[in-house]
């Protein structure tokens, strides 16, 4: 059974925001909201400064607190790809999952339900890559099965230095950033 994840090469990402626009278009994300976004971290002391650009979204965590806190089961881990999804018809809009996510990856859709990145499951089920991965002009994003040691994502993680966001929050995120 697949366990989907993403690898993003921060050495290649230029923060052009194409992934953000692609997601908004592909998923009809309402105005004033986003499912993915760009962050810039400036680290170090002058003159030793390092700028890291990251394309961020729901990490589809292996221990997702947004799922365990949900009172209705609307937030769930789908069997196919172990992707974290929200069943809109079950969501009561209690916002517990928004408070439980350390990454701020969720928001309330203007229609009232909790919304976030789905790893573009509607595309992946048809054999396509998520829209953000597909559209990236620098090809810095990789999507695939983390449980398959032969997959591109597994090989990149095995061979390149990488980090995840907020590892000490304990959610075991599945988006890996190459350094």
């Amino acid at each position, binding site marked *: 059974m697949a366990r989907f994840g993403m690898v993003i090469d921060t050495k290649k990402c230029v923060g052009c925001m194409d992934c953000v626009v692609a997601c908004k278009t592909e998923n009809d994300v309402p105005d004033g909201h986003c499912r993915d976004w760009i*962050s810039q971290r400036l680290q170090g002391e002058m003159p030793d400064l390092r700028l890291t650009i990251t394309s961020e979204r729901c990490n589809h965590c292996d221990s997702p607190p947004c799922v*365990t806190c949900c009172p209705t089961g609307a937030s769930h881990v789908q069997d196919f790809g172990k992707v974290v999804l929200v069943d809109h018809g079950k969501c009561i809009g209690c916002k517990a999952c928004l408070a*439980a996510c350390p990454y701020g990856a969720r928001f309330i859709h203007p229609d009232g339900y909790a919304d976030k990145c789905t790893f573009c499951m509607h595309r992946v089920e048809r054999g396509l890559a998520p829209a953000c991965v597909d559209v990236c002009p620098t090809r810095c994003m990789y999507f695939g099965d983390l449980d398959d040691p032969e997959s591109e994502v597994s090989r990149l993680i095995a061979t390149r230095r990488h980090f995840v966001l907020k590892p*000490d929050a304990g959610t075991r995120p599945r988006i890996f950033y190459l350094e």
Partner: protein
Amino acid sequence: MIELLTTRHNPLVDPTLHVWEWQIPVYLFLGGWVAGSMVLTGYLQRQARAPGQSSVSDRLPWIGLVLISLGMGALFLDLEHKLYVWRMYLTLQPLSPMSWGGWILLLVYPVLALGALATLADGALDRWPRLGAFARQLQSHTATRWLSVANIVVGIALGIYTGILLSSLGARPLWASAVLGPLFLVSGLSAGAAFAHVIAPGHEEQEQLLRFDNLFLMTELGLIALFLIGLLTVGAVHAQAAQLLLGGPFTAVFWVLVVGLGILLPLAIQSLTLAGRIPHTVIAPLLVLSGGLALRFVIVFAGQYSEWISP
């Protein structure tokens, strides 16, 4: 040095999380108050009474019904997808305290309603003979015992759940404390006792409830200390969250409204009343209730503000 810039500006989430407004603190406060009232009702129901002697435990179930309904109204107002609220009751999610809470709230109603029914006077019982017969059964010694146990068990579950609800949301370091459950329960007990001693019909009961309230207030102080010590010692992220109450933006309101005016001052006033130095007053209970409300506001708002700071 780390400087973080992000293009995300989602409502309720950025720049800092603020998904819960006044409705949730009000709900947690009223829920805690009802929880405390239920535990006290259960306790007082076990005490021997002279025939015809009234007790505040006859009034508390009625008031509890009003308060819990107001609380649930506030909770409902907070939901963003209101028409789907029934979805809560098609499932029990074992890992979600919120799901447990939904079911506990469903248990609160029958326990309070049965308790209220058992207090109906003879005149009312004669008017509705069927209901009257049922209510008389509820007034029996055995039924009173069972009701008392139900009040205590459901009351404790309700009180603790209002705190665990927050502490289960691990992404907010300020809430990541097992002390929140007992703290909210004891604060609810204190609110329940404070209100009950104002409306208690007999002097003896009033004094007993005053003593209880003082005990609860002192316990609350101890739990607040444990809560802060726990956060300060568990790790850097939690210690930084504790700073919100120890020098950060929520410090003044926490120490002045919650600890000073909500616990220490009423504790002093009630101690003087018990010592016979000053007459019984509603000021102390009003302060206790306001302090309990302020505690929920501070913890809910500051908790949302706190976050995992590591990159």
